[in-house]
Structures are given as structure tokens and as C-alpha cells.
């Protein structure tokens, strides 16, 4: 997913200033890292260069802050093309947890790995409680609920892995310790 496509999407309802785009992004995607303004302006400049957005006349003389951007026909077509593509499932699943388990076994044995996994499980579940509270709070916005659902399912997948890993620590210790 590229930030460019997300900004194009946020311009569909009408032209917006860079700072408005940042505000909408942060509100629409509360679980994402907040955008840096510099990142927004750099991306808008690239989109303008490619003809996907058009810079509007500044309302008054001033900094780039005052400049609004509008989606062009090319921009709309690009957005359509992007929506028709599915996201490729990531070929590399980074798993820092697995690395830690292996290192724990090597450095201090199976009990250290189990101890780590128990603590990691508690930390994951604590985070899941936070997301659950967010999404069940009365009046939670659906964008927040969807973001929480996604985070919960991923944390839950990690927890399944942690439980399986706990059951495999003994065998792993046998295999990798000399």
C-alpha cells in the first residue's frame, strides 16, 4: 500500500489542503502511525508531478500550507486501477518472537524461552484488552472498530503461535543445543 494512493482516496470527496489531508488521515486510520507533514507534502508533490493531482491557486500569498490539491481524471483512474489489484500476501513474515525464542534457548535453555513466551503472551493479551475496550466503548466509530478488529486478529494469530511454540520448546532445545 502506498501513501500516494491513500491520499488520492482522501481527495475523492473534494479538494483539500495538505494539513487537512494529514488530519483526515490521522482520524480515518487511528491505528496507523500519525503522518509527518513533510511526508504529506513530499507525496503530494510527487502526485502532482505524475499528473494525479492538481495544485489549486493559493487562496492568499503565503507558505505551501495554503495550497489546496484536487484529484485529476488521471488520479481517479489510477485509484480505480489500484482498487482492482489485490494486495500480495507478504512473502516474508518477520517474526521477532521466533528469533527471541531461539536465542533464549541458545543462551539460557528451554526454561528461559518458556519464561519469555509467558511474558510475551501476557503483553499481547494486555494489548488485546486495550483494543477490546476501544472497540466496545459506546459510540466507537466504525473505522476504529475495524482497525481494532484487524489488530486483534493479528495479535490473536501471534498468541496461537506462542501457544504452539510453548509446546515445541522442549523439542527445539533438543535440536539446537549442542
Amino acid at each position, binding site marked *: 500500500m502506498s501513501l500516494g494512493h491513500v491520499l488520492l482516496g482522501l481527495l475523492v470527496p473534494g479538494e483539500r489542503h495538505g494539513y487537512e489531508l494529514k488530519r483526515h488521515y490521522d482520524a480515518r486510520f487511528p491505528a496507523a502511525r500519525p503522518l509527518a507533514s513533510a511526508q504529506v507534502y513530499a507525496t503530494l508533490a510527487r502526485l502532482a508531478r505524475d499528473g494525479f493531482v492538481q495544485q489549486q491557486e493559493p487562496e492568499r500569498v503565503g507558505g505551501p500550507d495554503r495550497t489546496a490539491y484536487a484529484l485529476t481524471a488521471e488520479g481517479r483512474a489510477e485509484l480505480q486501477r489500484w482498487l482492482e489489484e489485490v494486495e500480495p500476501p507478504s512473502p516474508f513474515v518477520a517474526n521477532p518472537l521466533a528469533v527471541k525464542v531461539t536465542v533464549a534457548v541458545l543462551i539460557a535453555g528451554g*526454561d528461559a524461552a518458556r519464561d519469555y513466551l509467558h511474558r510475551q503472551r501476557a503483553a*499481547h*493479551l494486555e494489548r488485546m484488552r486495550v*483494543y477490546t475496550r476501544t472497540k*466496545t466503548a459506546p459510540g466507537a466509530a466504525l473505522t476504529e472498530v475495524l482497525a481494532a478488529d484487524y489488530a486483534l486478529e493479528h495479535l*490473536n494469530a501471534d498468541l496461537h503461535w506462542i*501457544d504452539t511454540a510453548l509446546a515445541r520448546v522442549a523439542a527445539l532445545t533438543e535440536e539446537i543445543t549442542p
Partner: protein
Amino acid sequence: MNHQITARGVVKSYGNSPALRGVDFAAARGEVVAITGPSGSGKSTLLHCLAGIVRPDAGSVHLDGQRIDDTSEAHRSRLRRSRFGVLFQFGHLVPELTAAENVAMPLLLAGVRRREAVTAARNWLERFDVADLAGKRPGEVSGGQAQRVAAARALVTEPEVLFADEPTGALDTLASEQVMTQLTRVARSAATTVLLVTHDARTAAYADREVVVRDGTVQGPPPLAGTPGPGAPAALRSTP
């Protein structure tokens, strides 16, 4: 801390195989506690010991400071009807009765008059968003709907403690969410203690805390996230 329900050194075996090997447990009034752990680790057995359904071989269970595990079956059964609520994976609704009649049943058994019992039942169905199913029989509603009816029935007597064993075990994500959201909302507003056995972390995340049962024992509370426990080897303590 003032605990409402406590277990000390609870041991329970089935034949020669130990299901619980000396479990300590405590919950405060109004707490929602998830009891998790691998299959066969002893979660249900622990819940049954706490609810007075199963008698431990050794150890004790106290409710508000009163020992309950060594009392007669009649006494424990009265306790279950008056102060406890139970909810299982498959709600075990009576198939011949309508949803409203199922929910009213515990009140009728407790001697509440029919009209009042039915009114209360409808209120509880309302709180679980299934008031429109009052006249339906269990066979005519979905699993998720039946489970919400069962939850209403478990809470209609306004129990002090609700014992729930895999209440979302047979439901999909959205149906589980509905049951758990309503259940915890209702329990929290009435300060009902909920002891919730589940193997699903998404369900456990509705609780205030988690107690993990492994191999018939309960682990102590884990140290705070991010701070390696005292048992962690020095080499791991400074992991960046």
C-alpha cells in the same frame, strides 16, 4: 485485597489422573476474570470446583469468607440457584419452552410469581438485544441468538457470581462479540463477578485479567510486560 471467592490448594483427580494439583485462585467482587490454558489443563474442573458443582479432593473454596466446598450437596445446590449463575458452551435451553419461558424458569423455580417472572425475562432479553425472539423456541433461532437467551437466563436471578465455560466456543467472531459485549456490560453495571473459561484470547480480552491453567496448576501473575521477571537470566535482562 478483599476477595469474594477464593480457592486454596485445590486438588482434584479423576481415578489416578490428577486434573488439579493444588490450585490457588481468588477473585474480587465485580471482577471479570478469564481462565485460559491448553485443552485438558483443568480449566473446567477448576470452574466446577469454584461453583460447587464438583467437590475437591483436598483444599478449600470460600465465598465471602464462608467455606462452601465441604457443605452438603443440598446446600451447594441452593447456593448455585440463589447466588450463582452458570452459562455453558451450548446454552442448554429447554427445547420445548420459548425463549421468554426459558429465561423466566430460574425465577419461577425460586418462587417468583409468573407475571413478574415473565416481565423480568422480557427485560433481560431486551438487554441482550433478543427481545423479538421472546416467543421463539430454541430450535427456531441461531446459535448466537440462543447463546444470548442463555446469557439472559444465567443473569435473570441477578447472581453474585457468573460461571461461564466457553460461552462463545460455538460462535463466530461477530456472534461472540455480541455475546461478550453485552455480557460484560451487564455484569459490570451490576458488579457481578464473572469467571470465564475460554481458550480464545479474543474472548479472554473482554476480561479484566487472565489466569492461566497449565497441567492442573495456576501460574502466578506474570511480571509486568516488558520487564523480565526475577527468574530471567541476566543475559536476557538487557535485551534492547
